């Protein structure tokens, strides 16, 4: 079963990491991802640009476009992983591995995926 593991954290605090901390955290997260990839369990992974770059389009016949993220929350959605897990237990274990590799504070939300279409993008250079 596929699970989305969504990373929520204080954008301001993550933005205040030094380059060295940033490199260290990203290195440890990569190690967890490599483990998942070796087991053939890792799907798409994304790190999002800060919410200040977000635009919100409200659903309607005549959609309204708003600057900023959909909701002003204390913690923001910063990125996500798609991981293949046998059951919720394994998904939680995977999220725990990621949590231990990451800095304290913030949360991973584990959400089963109902429909998944991997699509075709992301293999080129379009992503920064």
């Amino acid at each position: 079963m596929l699970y989305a593991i969504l990373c929520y954290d204080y954008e301001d605090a993550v933005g205040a990491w030094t380059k060295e901390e940033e490199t260290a955290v990203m290195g440890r997260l990569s190690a967890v991802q490599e483990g998942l990839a070796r087991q053939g369990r890792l799907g798409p992974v994304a790190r999002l640009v800060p919410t200040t770059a977000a635009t919100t389009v409200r659903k309607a016949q005549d959609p309204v476009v708003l600057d900023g993220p959909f909701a002003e929350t204390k913690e923001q959605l910063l990125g996500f992983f798609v991981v293949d897990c046998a059951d919720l237990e394994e998904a939680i274990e995977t999220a725990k591995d990621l949590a231990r590799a990451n800095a304290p504070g913030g949360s991973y939300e584990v959400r089963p995926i109902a429909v998944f279409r991997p699509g075709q993008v992301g293999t080129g250079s379009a992503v920064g």
Partner: protein
Amino acid sequence: MTDLAWIDAAFTAARPQALGALLRYFRDLDTAEEAFQDACLRALDSWPRNGPPRDPVAWLILVGRNAALDGVRRRSRLEALPDEEALSDLDDAEAGMAERLDGSHYRDDILRLLFICCHPDLPATQQIALALRIVSGLSVKQIARAFLVGESAIEQRITRAKARVSAAAVPFEAPGAAERAERLSAVAAMIYLIFNESYSANAVADRGRAPLCDEAIRLARLLLRLFPAEPEIMGLAALMLLQHARTPARADAAGNAVLLEDQDRSLWSRPMIVEGLALIDKAMRHRRPGPYQVQAAIAALHARAERAERAADTDWAQIDRLYATLERLQPSPVVTLNRAVAVSKLRGAGEALAMIEPLAPRLSGYFFFFGARGAFLQQLGRMEEAREAFNRAIALASTPAEAAHIRMHLDRLAADGDAG
């Protein structure tokens, strides 16, 4: 990440909002700073044991406020010392505090804190030092190192700035819409000042490291989160991101400046370019152009040429048009000088030279004027005049890297002379 590292990042992130709220309570910068400091000390003791609080900002405000009130009571000897139990049930209090924080206060708290630092009575150097000390929480040592200035000089700037600020008495009422817009634009200018100072002081001398550029970008993101629909703030953030993205390529291994067209574009920071382009795209939708947006749009055209990995792909015609817009919005000889560079690419050095000649009286002390003039003359084969212009530029260079760059031009001239 060690306990200390993430706690430090949490303090840095919480600082503007927490300090802004404490300043509103106590109406005195020193008291607010002391209260925040106290709260941080208690956090260093409590957080590693209990884990990070649900809302670090609310925790720091509440604990800081209580600590400062304790201090006031102690000093006035009106009440017995309160015991630590007063702080025991933080969780409930924190939740209540968090709810109140969600109100509209925090926006004006942070803006006020930033605005205090750019009071019109303060010279630019003091504004920058004060903002980095107060809002960013950098140490005097860090600020001094970033600007290659002695610590005592920075200390003095901060002390003087604080004295002027407290004499000037910034109002604590929530500002009206016009006042708020004015504050916003003053703060934006101050943030860009920090960026520019750091960009010119560090980036080349320190081999592409410019920590204060990162700090200025962080402050712009903070401002943008408070005012998410202001196209000029988007423009400011985009401008800094797109310029700073090039920092790793701006100096070679020997610490010499590398011109934009000669830079290794693979060294440009992709995430910063992606974010900068996203922000300028958002800003343009508002159709309310301003100087930051136009400058960011120019930087965006350079960044987009990066995709093709060739300077030759730069859209100079569009850059010329954008500079023309900027000349209209914010007339300045420096803008015209920059436009002339685009014109030289488009229509040749002759036209560019004609464009900058009238600027001579106003830019007679400006390094880049003589650098550009020398380059245009060189392209036109007027070598003797080019040499003269480059010599003037060297005399005006403010960093060794600037001088070294011009000397390289002179060497090329000399080599050409020998060859011919």
